[in-house]
Each structure stands twice: as C-alpha cells, then as structure tokens.
C-alpha cells in the first residue's frame, strides 16, 4: 500500500516567522501539469500591516550592520539556494518551466545574489563623493538605505524576479515587504525557507503571497513605507499606486515589463534607486 504523503500549506513569511494569513484565507496553486494542487496562504491588508511593523523594527539594525556582514549574508542565501537547487528546480518545473529554463533560472538567481553580495561594501564607494567645496570644509556625500521598501511583484519570473529586486534593495541596508502575486508563487515560498536559515535577520525580508491587485495599493498607501518597487504590474494599477504613493512622497520605481535575464536587470544603479544621498559638512580649522 502506498504511503500517504504529508502536505504542506504554504505560509506567509512575516518578521522571520511563518504564519497563516490572519484572514484565514488560502488559495490553490495548481501544478502546471495538473498533477497536484498546493494550498497557499493568501495575505491580507493586516498581514501587510504586520509585515511593515516587523520590517520597520528590523531596518535600523540591518542598516547598522557592516557592509561586510550584509554581503556575507547575501552570499549565504546563494550558498543555500545552490545546495537546495533540486527543490527550487522542482518548484520552477511545477510552475510550468522547461527543464532547461528552470535550471537557467536557478543558476541566474544564485549568481545574481553572489553578484549583489559583492556590492555590499562597495556601492558606497561608487555612489559616494568627497566634494571639493570652495571653502574650509570637509564635505562628503554617501548613500544610505532609503528605509523600508515595498515590492509588488505581480507576475514576475518566479524566482529570478524576486531575487533580482530584493537583493539590490536589502544589500544597502533597506528592508523589504514583498507582495508576490500571480500563479507561480512556489519558488518564492521556497525562498522564504532559505531566508529563514541564512542568517537574514527577522523582518529584513517579508514575503506575502496573495493578490497584487488587492495588496499593492495597501503598500502604496502605507505611510511607513519609504519606497515602492512596482514590478510587472499592469499600467493602470501601477499608475494608481504611484498616485497613492505621493501621500508620503515615496520613491517609486516601475518596471512594467521586466526582462530579468537581460544584462540590464543586474546593475549597481538598481541599488542606487533605493538609497538616499546624505551630504555632511564640517569645517576644517584648528
């Protein structure tokens, strides 16, 4: 007699913990070949509220870590992903990818993390300046993380999408609250379990599966979110979220049709979208 398998209901990843949606909602994700159905928690506005709260309290500590340390943690995420590549490839296959495409997606995701890991203690050197002002002053401009970034991934590529957007956001010391919409959330869910074991402090990355149409505007309206990364969202909704984001002058980036395999999808200038330049003056005198 065949063994009865144990089925997992996928949970939300909020502030370092795996939780069911407070709303109790669950949705079904069907394997592309129709072989199975996975039950996934469907995040609500209150889940987002909780995630923002956790993310906010994690942000200062994350930013205060050394770049060296953040780089090591990003690298560690890559290490564990590589180790669990079978799991990830499997998730990608269930989402309907071909074998080759799934392998390529995983490879690119791991490599991208390694690439961004290396930027942790370098981007400030590229984006910072000692400014030669006309006076007896030491004057330096350096990038700092913007703070808490909301990421709305409507139907991005299932693994490389989230990696490509979250890595440049957190590498500088931001924290992220990520809404993963669309029919292929399983690879992102697998990522949550990597994050939970990769020394990423609780709250630095929060991943909430659900309906981007419903949850995106909640993030856009949240007054404690500093920036919004709108990825693969249809233009009308993206524009509406951009309007909502004006209420607290969020920094908004919109990637309507992201091509994550392109060279341009990986750039230190993506890190730069989620930093603030701070200029400090001090006199030079005896």
């Amino acid at each position, binding site marked *: 007699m065949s063994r009865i398998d144990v089925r997992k209901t996928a949970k939300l990843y909020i502030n370092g913990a795996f939780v069911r949606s407070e709303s109790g909602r669950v949705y079904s994700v069907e394997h592309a070949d129709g072989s199975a159905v996975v039950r996934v928690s469907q995040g609500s506005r209150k889940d987002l509220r909780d995630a923002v709260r956790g993310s906010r309290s994690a942000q200062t500590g994350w930013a205060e870590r050394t770049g060296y340390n953040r780089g090591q943690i990003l690298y560690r995420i890559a290490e564990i992903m590589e180790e669990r590549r079978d799991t990830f490839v499997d998730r990608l296959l269930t989402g309907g990818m071909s074998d080759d495409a799934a392998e390529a997606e995983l490879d690119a995701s791991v490599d991208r993390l390694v690439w961004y890991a290396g930027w942790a203690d370098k981007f400030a050197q590229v984006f910072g300046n000692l*400014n*030669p002002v*006309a006076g007896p002053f030491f004057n330096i*401009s350096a990038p700092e993380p913007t703070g808490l970034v909301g990421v709305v991934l409507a139907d991005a590529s299932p693994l490389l999408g989230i990696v490509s957007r979250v890595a440049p956001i957190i590498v500088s010391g931001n924290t992220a609250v990520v809404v993963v919409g669309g029919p292929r959330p399983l690879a992102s869910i697998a990522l949550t379990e990597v994050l939970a074991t990769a020394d990423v402090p609780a709250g630095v990355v929060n991943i909430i599966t659900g309906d981007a149409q419903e949850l995106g505007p909640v993030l856009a309206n949240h007054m404690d979110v500093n920036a919004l990364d709108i990825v693969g969202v249809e233009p009308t909704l993206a524009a509406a979220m951009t309007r909502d984001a*004006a209420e607290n002058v969020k920094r908004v980036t919109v990637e309507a049709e992201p091509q994550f395999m392109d060279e341009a999808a990986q750039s230190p200038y993506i890190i730069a979208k989620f930093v603030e330049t701070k200029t*400090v003056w001090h006199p030079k005198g005896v």
Partner: protein
Amino acid sequence: MTDHTIEKGIEWEYAPSVQGAEMVSIASTYGLFIDGAFVDPTDGEMFPTINPATEEQLSSVAAAGVADIDLAVKAARSAFENVWGPMKPAERAKYLYRIARLLQERAREFAILETLDGGKPIKESRDIDIPLVAAYFFYYAGWADKLDYAFPGIDPKPIGVAGQIIPWNFPMLMLAWKIAPALAAGNTVVLKPAETTPLTALLFAQLCAEAGLPDGVVNIVTGDGRTGAAIVEHPDIDKIAFTGSTGVGKAIRRAIAGTGKKLTLELGGKGAHIVFDDAPLDQAVEGVINGIFFNQGHVCCAGSRLLVQESIRDQLLDKLRSRLDTLRVGNPLDKNTDVGAINSAAQLQRIEALVASGRDAGVEMFQSSCDLPTKGFWYAPTVFTDVSQSHRIAQEEIFGPVLATMTFRTPDEAIEKANNTPYGLSAGVWTTKGSRILWMADRLRAGVVWANTFNKFDPTSPFGGYKESGFGREGGRHGLLPYLEGPWS
C-alpha cells in the same frame, strides 16, 4: 581712574548705506521668453510684480497659459532635437561658461534686482545668491563634455525637454540649480519662476540671448500655479523638476503618475538644529541665527527647530535673546540689513497664523526689539522657547523668521526628536566631540547634515531631501543623474 562698574558708552548708529538701484532697468512689461525672443502671451493676461519692501509695483509680467506652454515646449523640443542635443558637448560647455562669465560680469545688477523683487537683503543677494549662481553654471559647464566619466559603465544620454518650476525664496539660485545641470547634460528647458519673483529669471533670459545661446534651449515662462500645471501636464515634457511646497510636490507626483515623465522634487523641511553642551557656544549661536534668520527664514533647509541640551538651555537662550536684538531688520537695499522683507502678503499671513497658533497654545516667545517699516511686509525675528513636539510650530514649516526651541537630555533623545517629522531635508549639530558628530550624522534622517556650521551651499555638494522633503539631488555629480537617461531612470 575709571570706575570699574559704571556703564558709559557711546551710542553709535550705522548711517543708512543704501545700494543704489540705478544700474537696473526694469521694463514696464515683460512677455514670455520663448524660442529666443520675448513674446506676448496668447491670451494677453498680465500680472503685477511688486517690491515686498515697499509694496510698489515694479513691472507687469505675462501669465503663460496652456497655448504658451505648448509653444515653449515645441521650441524646447525643436532645440533639443536639432541644435542642443546634437551639439558637441565641448561646445555646449562653452555656452555654459559664457553664461557663467556674464553672470559674474552682471552680478551686481542681478543682486539688486533680486533684492528689489524678492525682499532679501542686498548683502545676501550680493555675497551669496548671485556668486553661487555663477559658480553653479561654472561647475556644470565643466561636466558637459565629461559625462562619460561621471558614472562608471554608463554611456549617458540626455532626457529631452525638462519642465522646471522654482520657488520665490532663492529665485536665481534655484534657476541655476535647475538650468545648469539640465543644459550640461544636453537637455533643453522650460522654466517657470515663481509668480512673486519673476524679474531676475527674465533678466537671465536676456543674458541667454546675449550669450548667443541657441533659440529654444532656455525658455522662461512666467505665471502662477496654473502655468505650473500646464507645464506638468504637457505631454511632450520628459522630466519635471520642482522645488517648492510639499503639498504642490505631492500634487505633481499624482498628476504625472503613469505618464513615464521623470520627476525630482525638492520640498519642504523642518530642520533640527542640535546644540550639545560641549559646543563652541558663541559660534553655535551664530549658526542658529543664520540657520533660521538667513533669508528671513524663507529657506526649505532652515534650522527651524532648535534642540538644545537641557543643561545649557538658559545660557543659550540668553545668548540668543541678546543676539536677536543686534539683527538689523529693514530696507533690503541697505548694505547693513541682516533681515529683509517677507516675500509676500500671503506668506506674511501664513507666518502670523502659525505664530498665533503657538501663542494660543501658551508657548513663551521673544522677539527682536527692532522697529519695523510701516510699508511693506515685515516680521520681527521670533524665538519660541519650550516648545513641545506636539505644537504646530514644531511640526509645520513656517517658512519665516520663527524658531521653535525644544530641549533634549541625551544624544539618543536628540536623534529621536530630530527625526520625529515627516520631513528630512537638513539638520545641524554643534558639538566639539568628533565621534559624536559622526554618530549623529549617521542617524539623522536628513539629506544634508551641517556639523558645526549651517546653511552652506556649494555646486560640488549634492543637496536634497529624505522622506517628504523630496527626492533627487541637486549639485555635484549626483545632480546630473536626474537629467540623464540611464539604468537609474
């Protein structure tokens, strides 16, 4: 011998030393500067601009409507595509250098006109605003043919036509912050000066013509918020750069959402000016004075909240009180005037209303004992003592010569209070301890931190806000980014 305690001295007054305004000729009316020439507005609408120190009308200026903006954008587009865009960067640079030199040459004229139209003291327009204007053009001129070196790995391209809307507090300086980097990067511009201070921008338009700048590269369109809205909404503008109030900034953000227009915003502030007990106190007092009374407090990065360590509160307030009385308030053209006229009747009302809210809340205050002129718009330098975070005067931008004083006990508390605001433009720290300065600078959520100094500006130094103070940087290498196409845009 003299008695050691008798106070006996000579009252020594400074005689008026008024800068003559003869070298400035102001036309009775001005059209719009579009495609290299002054033209009448399509619908003929004009509005007056007055001297806020006397309430006398200086001139009558065109109000640009939708049709005028369309003409200006067409001119800018054509100049971008046919002349300025294709031009060799080194040639663009030389035009900018030419403009910088002409500005230096005509500096006094610009300074006087700036003071007449805006009310700021001549010593500021003469020694700060206009010299900086020339410096910004000089600085960005040099970037025009070096953009390949500005950002590693990038082949930068101009964006196209920039619509630029600037405020009335630093009319020429804000013009320079906008136009110099935009032109250096190869863009053309349609710029709207503030409705209360259009005259120096119009003089700048003449200067562009004098410099032989190709037609349509710089278009100056005067008008009020409706003109600004027409710029914001014009479909053929690629980028909006706005400096002004947070409310208008938000409205612009909403208006262009989904259009693909690029945006930078330089908005309001409520800067914390933090003084520790080990500060160089007498210099800190000067810093605080400069921080809030420079340009009548019409400064987005003003140090409008004084956070003083409780142990030196009384001492610092005593020093401030006596220093306040030496501020010379009055005729902006007098070379000895420290604090000039409030820019407009509307702004004066806003200041009065916010001060009234502080008084109504029972907050103690003291004011400079100066005599104020009877004509014009004036407000005596004012310091509120013992303000609480919850008072409106601690939260809202007053944009006038009004300081709100609070106390703190520890560095942590200073940071907490300083950051407890939706704004994040500037902050000041006065302490002798180097490691504390760096610790504070790391934690202050503000785009500019002045340590043991305040209100310093330089073309090489990026300036801009966190949070509701806006986004994007002006000045320095960073100031080119908003005007270039690249992976950051």
